């Protein structure tokens, strides 16, 4: 049996209280925000990449242009972001990455991805400081979902304690400092100085334009056999006819037009595609656009605002 596809999740929902600045907006690698840098890094290994945000962060300038997964239990910390991702795309594994790891490199991430054990709940690095699992640069398998939800429901929130008590594949870090994080303004200054000396090569290229974000999935990392996992959200009359507000499905549909025909048969939708518009990842799209693994699709019935 093949492993579930790997999606990326940048955790950017923190309050950054000790830094007193938004950690996601800090710049270590040239002019790009740490959030964009982490996003690009994950996009090299993952079929689709998302940014985890709290509900009140959806429209902020640093985060608004990324595909997002919104916390369902804001206030519960990083595990709220992880559980929201596991719920939104229950059939995929998540390569979860905090956005305050300026020393992380593509090599460290690839090392993790290559040694992933999909039979375990997670694959994680062992901290070079205390030997315990590092939950925020780790691969969380779909099998983690129910136990994460139960853990949250019992009032617990520490993702590290969760991994300590789970069946996790633990790896030694190839570079002891790779996961050192940065929480204060002093540490930020020191990290910038270290990186500026150039003893750590940049982990990813300078792909920064917003156009590259519109279609996150990268063709070479698509799932085999042309099937792709897409998420469909339903509104208004389609929500009622489908009996749900969203679903995640594996499909062979190559375009939104094909996908709508498939779903129309399944849910007995009365509207035809000529009466609808379609959006991919919250932008209006052509019906013949190519669907990519990880896309979120919305079929838009005739509107009636005002």
């Amino acid at each position: 049996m093949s492993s579930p596809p790997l999606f990326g999740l940048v955790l950017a929902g923190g309050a950054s209280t000790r830094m007193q600045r938004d950690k996601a907006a800090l710049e270590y690698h040239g002019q790009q925000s740490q959030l964009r840098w982490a996003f690009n890094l994950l996009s090299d290994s993952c079929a689709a990449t998302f940014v985890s945000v709290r509900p009140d962060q959806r429209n902020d300038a640093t985060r608004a242009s990324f595909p997002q997964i919104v916390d369902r239990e804001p206030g519960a910390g990083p595990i709220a972001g992880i559980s929201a991702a596991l719920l939104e795309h229950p059939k995929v594994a998540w390569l979860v990455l905090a956005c305050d790891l300026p020393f992380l490199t593509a090599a460290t991430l690839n090392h993790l991805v290559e040694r992933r054990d999909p039979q375990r709940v997670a694959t994680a690095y062992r901290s070079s400081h205390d030997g315990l699992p590092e939950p925020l640069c780790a691969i969380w398998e779909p099998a983690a979902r129910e136990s994460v939800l139960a853990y949250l429901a019992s009032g617990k929130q520490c993702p590290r304690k969760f991994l300590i008590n789970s069946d996790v594949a633990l790896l030694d870090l190839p570079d002891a400092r790779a996961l050192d994080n940065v929480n204060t303004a002093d540490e930020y200054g020191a990290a910038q100085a270290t990186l500026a000396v150039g003893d750590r090569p940049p982990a990813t290229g300078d792909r920064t334009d917003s156009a590259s974000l519109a279609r996150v999935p990268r063709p070479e990392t698509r799932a085999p056999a042309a099937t792709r996992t897409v998420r469909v959200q339903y509104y208004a009359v389609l929500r009622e006819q489908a009996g749900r507000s969203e679903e995640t499905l594996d499909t062979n549909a190559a375009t939104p037009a094909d996908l709508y025909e498939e779903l129309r048969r399944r849910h007995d939708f009365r509207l035809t595609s000529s009466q609808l518009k379609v959006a991919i990842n919250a932008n209006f799209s052509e019906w013949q656009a190519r669907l990519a693994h990880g896309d979120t699709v919305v079929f838009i019935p005739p509107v009636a605002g005002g």
Partner: protein
Amino acid sequence: MKAFAFSQTHLVPDQYRAALSDPAAGGYAAFEGWVRNHNEGLAVTRLEYEAFEALANKEGERIVAEAIERYGVIKAACVHRIGTLAIGDLAVWVGVSSRHRAEAFAACRYIIDEVKHRVPIWKKEHYVNGDSGWVNCERCATHAHDHDHGHEHEGHRPPATGYGQKKD
């Protein structure tokens, strides 16, 4: 204030109006859409509005920016309700401040017309007889009707038009 926003609670036009004031403005025009107690011969008891907010906010902002650019007005904004509304409730507010009145009226009209056509917002009407229906979606094939500014949906070309409650 944001150029385009949704509100789960009652709209407060006085607040929005204050946000549009400007020393260079010679006037202000606003449009308020209200929930009417009848539509297409049926008595309406309440409405529900629902929006695809991620896209609706972007499209709404584009419309307001277009109006400012096209008519050269000073400030403009639009706020739309979502959730359950009763008869008489304010469903949508559009406001424009400008140097002269003509462009304020024109920009206001442009914004409400475009919002009705382009922004992914849906309206469900509940009728006195217990029925309910999504406006523009559920009776298109069986209904034809003239409408003063065309159909509510660009990609939608059946013979029928105009299930929306006309606000103007």
